[in-house]
């Protein structure tokens, strides 16, 4: 009990301090760091780094900040960004095993490559300009080719399908962008302690990039102060989500692997970042002990939670929070030091199995058809097992329905015929008005803008599967529109499936937490999932063909003009006279034969004692013609014998 109180005192002090700050006229800038670890059902471990940096609305500092990165605040001021999110992702989120109905996955499961969306606080006419400038600025800031999103063919302006209702929203994604350390380093530079101290010191590049999924995200939103004369505050949220495979020595396949921070990252946490207001490590265990003992007050019970027959934590948690289906252990890393580094470990003693909560419908998308002319895109929604239990069903007119929003961008070279939209629910074709609640289509313009499809489906709750298919023609690109890269095909960015009536949140019973990570989990977030990126093979011209044609044409020209000039230049009469004056040199068959044998034997021809330029040129021409005839004859003979059998 005593230890509990002791751990409470600093927290209380901190809280009172916070209250004082909140009510004071001048808020200070705040930075907090957190790391959430979560074992996944398929023997992997998820690590979610969360850094939050708040700059309160103030004009006292002018353009200067204490903690807040200047680059970001300049960005916000210059382009008047109201809200923005940028994510770099490598690998695919496994919705089946890693969950799809918790705030973590709905916020951090991002499409492959780069995704950027932003809401601007400028007049409607300037939104596109701001977007273009923003992409360039971010491109420089993050060492990525985000500037490709500048072209109007690569972004769209979703109205309601994206989840945020705003007409000043722009959305774009680059599925082909490779993500590597060069993107992580500038991202880390925005943190006050970089990766030198605190939780971010764990980010050992090889281990972070060895993971199965890697997504670094930057989300910023401005907070209006509401007061005259004050600027707006900015909240910058930086997260890095990695899914790692702990190395195991045990051969048992049903046993969950045991791990520690040092085995996962190859590093340990040595103290917190001194500039951080709070720095915590959380461990979330899903699917256990949710319903058992209700009161955790007694020491023994609490002890049982982290050292029991199932598993064993290497450190004692400072607090334990419970949610309906999961347990959250909270560790404060302030106490760790060089001599006593924070190295949390989890040892499993018994095989255990659980499953993550999944989104009501699981979405897959694929291409249909064959050939280079046309095809179809199909989105398949399959009911998951957990669909029945989920809240968020809407009962209208006595019918229980699930709402699903689909938001999809089509690049212009995929010419979609929107009238071919077909919807099948449980293998029955439905007319549009039966299931389609709302639809918004903006067709693409060739080489100018990309197409966009937003639709809201209202499916019956007992739906097993739903399929949407839409046909398209493949376009032809102009020669300079082909990227200079290797020809792999062209990408169709991920579609976004969101469920507007379902919201994911973790509801911890205790109201103690003031941690930004937990409060962000507590907020109701829209359940969304991204589909796969598709690869469309387009007709690609053989770019080496022009080269071949040029070479052949030049050869023919050279032969033609060479011989023509030769003929024109030759003066027969003059030549004959010259030959006569040369005396009775035998220029007949004999010499030609000797030349021929010399040629055949590959020996240099002995230089003729007296060769006139005219004779030389005539010899050259005859040699050339002889060569051509020989080669053509050989080719024809070879062809004839090789095919005529």
């Amino acid at each position: 009990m005593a230890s509990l109180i002791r751990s409470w005192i600093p927290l209380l002090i901190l809280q009172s301090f916070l209250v004082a700050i909140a009510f004071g006229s001048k808020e200070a800038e705040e930075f907090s760091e957190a790391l959430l670890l979560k074992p996944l059902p398929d023997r992997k471990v998820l690590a979610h780094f969360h850094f939050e940096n708040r700059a309160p609305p103030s004009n006292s500092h002018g353009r200067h900040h204490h903690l807040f990165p200047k680059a970001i605040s300049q960005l916000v001021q210059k382009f008047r960004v109201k809200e923005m999110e940028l994510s770099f992702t490598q690998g695919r989120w496994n919705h089946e095993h890693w969950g799809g109905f918790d705030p973590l996955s709905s916020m951090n499961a991002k499409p492959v490559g780069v995704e950027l969306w932003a809401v601007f606080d400028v007049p409607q006419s300037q939104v596109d300009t701001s977007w273009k400038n923003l992409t360039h600025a971010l491109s420089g800031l993050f060492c990525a080719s985000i500037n490709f999103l500048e072209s109007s063919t690569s972004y769209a302006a979703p109205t309601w399908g994206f989840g945020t209702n705003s007409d000043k929203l722009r959305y774009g994604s680059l599925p082909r962008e490779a993500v590597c350390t060069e993107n992580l380093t500038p991202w880390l530079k925005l943190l006050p302690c970089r990766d030198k101290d605190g939780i971010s010191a764990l980010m050992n590049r090889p281990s972070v990039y060895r993971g199965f999924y890697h997504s670094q995200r930057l989300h910023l939103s401005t907070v209006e102060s509401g007061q005259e004369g004050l600027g707006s505050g900015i909240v910058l949220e930086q997260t890095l989500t990695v899914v790692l495979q702990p190395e195991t020595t045990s051969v048992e396949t049903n046993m969950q692997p045991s791990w520690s921070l040092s085995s996962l990252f190859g590093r340990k946490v040595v103290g917190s970042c001194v500039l951080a207001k709070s720095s915590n490590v959380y461990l979330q265990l899903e699917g256990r002990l949710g319903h058992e003992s209700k009161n955790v007050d007694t020491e023994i019970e609490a002890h049982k939670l982290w050292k029991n027959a199932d598993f064993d934590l290497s450190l004692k948690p400072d607090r334990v929070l419970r949610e309906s289906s999961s347990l959250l252990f909270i560790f404060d890393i302030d106490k760790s030091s060089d001599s006593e580094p924070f190295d949390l470990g989890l040892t499993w003693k018994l095989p255990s199995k659980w499953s993550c909560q999944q989104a009501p419908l699981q979405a897959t998308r694929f291409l249909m058809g064959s050939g280079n002319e046309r095809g179809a895109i199909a989105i398949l929604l399959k009911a998951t097992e957990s669909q029945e239990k989920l809240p968020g069903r809407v009962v209208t007119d006595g019918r229980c329905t699930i709402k699903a929003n689909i938001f999809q961008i089509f690049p212009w070279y995929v010419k979609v015929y929107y009238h071919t939209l077909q919807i099948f629910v449980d293998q029955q074709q439905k007319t549009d008005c039966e299931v389609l609640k709302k639809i918004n289509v903006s067709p693409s313009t060739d080489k100018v803008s990309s197409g966009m499809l937003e639709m809201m489906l209202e499916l019956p709750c007992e739906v097993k599967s739903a399929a949407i298919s839409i046909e398209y023609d493949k376009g032809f690109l102009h020669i300079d529109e082909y990227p200079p890269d290797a020809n792999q095909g062209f990408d169709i960015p991920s579609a976004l499936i969101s469920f507007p009536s379902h919201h994911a949140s973790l509801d911890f019973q205790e109201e103690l937490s003031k941690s930004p990570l937990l409060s962000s989990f507590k907020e109701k977030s829209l359940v969304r999932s991204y589909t796969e990126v598709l690869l469309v093979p387009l007709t690609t011209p053989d770019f080496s063909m022009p080269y071949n044609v040029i070479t052949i044409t030049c050869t023919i020209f050279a032969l033609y003009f060479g011989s023509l000039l030769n003929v024109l230049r030759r003066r027969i009469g003059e030549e004959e006279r010259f030959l006569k004056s040369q005396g009775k040199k035998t220029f007949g068959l004999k010499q030609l034969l000797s030349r021929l044998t010399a040629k055949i034997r590959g020996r240099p021809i002995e230089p003729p004692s007296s060769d006139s330029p005219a004779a030389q040129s005539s010899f050259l021409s005859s040699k050339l013609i002889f060569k051509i005839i020989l080669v053509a004859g050989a080719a024809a003979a070879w062809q004839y014998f090789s095919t005529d059998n």
Partner: protein
Amino acid sequence: MKARVFQKLIGKYMSEMGAEVYYQKFHPEGNQFHPLHFFSGPDSYTLLDNVSCASYGVNVAGIIRAPRGDGKESIVLVTPYDFINGGDYEALSLGITGTLFSLLARVTWLSKDIIWLVADSRYGDYRPVAAWLTEYHSPSFKDSDLLKCGELNTADKFRRAGTMAAALVLKVDGRSERFEDTLSIYAEASNGQMPNLDLINVVNYLAVHRQGFYVKVEKVVSLLSSSWLKIIGEIFEAVGKLAHTLNPDWNFGIPTADYLEGSATLASSLYSQALGIPTGPHGAFRDYQVDAITLKVSPRFPPDSKTRQHDFFLRGAKLLEGTIRSVNNLLEKFHQSFFLYLLTSPSKFISVGVYMIAFALLVASLPMVAASLYIDGCKALNNSTLNPAGNFKSWKWLDAAKQVFALHLFGLIVTLLPYFICQVPGQHSPSNRSIMWGTTSSSLLLITFATIPGCSPFSSRRHGTNWAVLKSVTISAAFIGLCLMSIINFATAEIGALLLVPTCLIVQPIKPALRSRRIKSLLGAFCSMVLLTIGFPVMLFAISKGLFGEGLVGLSLGGEFWTWLESLWAWKSATYLYIGMVHLPCWLLCLCILFHPS
């Protein structure tokens, strides 16, 4: 029951590897003759209304997701396996792929997903793969009765893994006759389409230089022992040697054995392409522009020897791993220009730029001869004609064109006739059907001759079309037909040109030749008779059967010919169209010229 147990066992094995597993049911009936479906793509999965649960196949497929990949592309491994009476050799192929699959599930270098398809080969090798591909690329979202059959519930998930980059079909069969393990590569897909040469090269390189397989491609065995080819080969060898002595840099001479081998392989390659029937399950992939080849491995030991099995697994899996790794590491597609080629050995090929020359030279004579004949014919007409209608001089060819057109129309009808014969109710043997076809065609031909004036070769009117003009138009038609065919299926056009061009060039009316009794014209008449006899499609079929070592079969020839044609149209081979619409009319026209009354 046994089949279900096997399927579940394989599925369990795959999921233990960490793969996503699913089962797919399909119908054994596949190919139906649709007269106008020749150049259409693979048709969407049309399910029959009354589906019987009595016979259906089940494919098992597993997908390994690349750990860090983006899921845009995939590589497919296919092992056909007969779940009911699969032999030891088939089990070996499962073993090799299984070994490889368990390795791939653990490696970190994958950037493309791997799909392993265990195709239910009870209904042939091709059909299950084609059914799976149809489901993959053009599924029907409608309700199907098939899904409800059996206890195995397959409705839940058919999984996909992006665009296919390449596919490898692995089969193990028979014991190798050689000392080494043998690997045969099959590449020809429908209508003479070939996979990218790079895929063959990769497999060949890895098999020969890394794993020590003896690699071979199909060849015409009877050519290996033919003496005339041997003589040509010896001449080439001698010429090569002579050239080498003259100039040590000239090394184009090849040994006779190599020449024989190359020619036999080339002939087989040409024949398989010309036939237009895929040589294995890989053909189904080509319909979706996926490069695929079939690898048929023959081990040198009996399948039950446990000691050698290990080594064989290791080498087979290493070969496949190397190939998969090569494709996996490619950021781009295979280069687009290596699709048109003929193989002369697993490591040598003749590219389109070279083999087109032979065909072009063969065909180039046709328009020239046509032009000269036309001029001759016009002159002859002007001299002999009674009516002085000089103003219609340029329309001389119209009569001949009518005749040519009529016979081509007849060819089209004959081509479509089998479809209607198939619709005739009742069970008929192939020979009966071929008799039906033969009688209807010949009666149609008689009607054509009777109704269209000047068409018949037996009409006695002397002022009919001039034979020279008729020949000129025939040659033009043959030229156009051959050129068109060379675009669709080059090998067919090449073989067709070898038959059609000499016939068209040499044919002349037989009556004047007999009348003149000159040796030269008699010889010409004899040659044209021989060529025309060979040129008749049925005759050609019999000869080719004989050439491939199956011998003449007398009366059942008609039946076999029918079966052969049926297989051609079932596989949507354009060769069938060529025979019906180019070869047959031209042959008939040549016959008309031969018996021309002039």
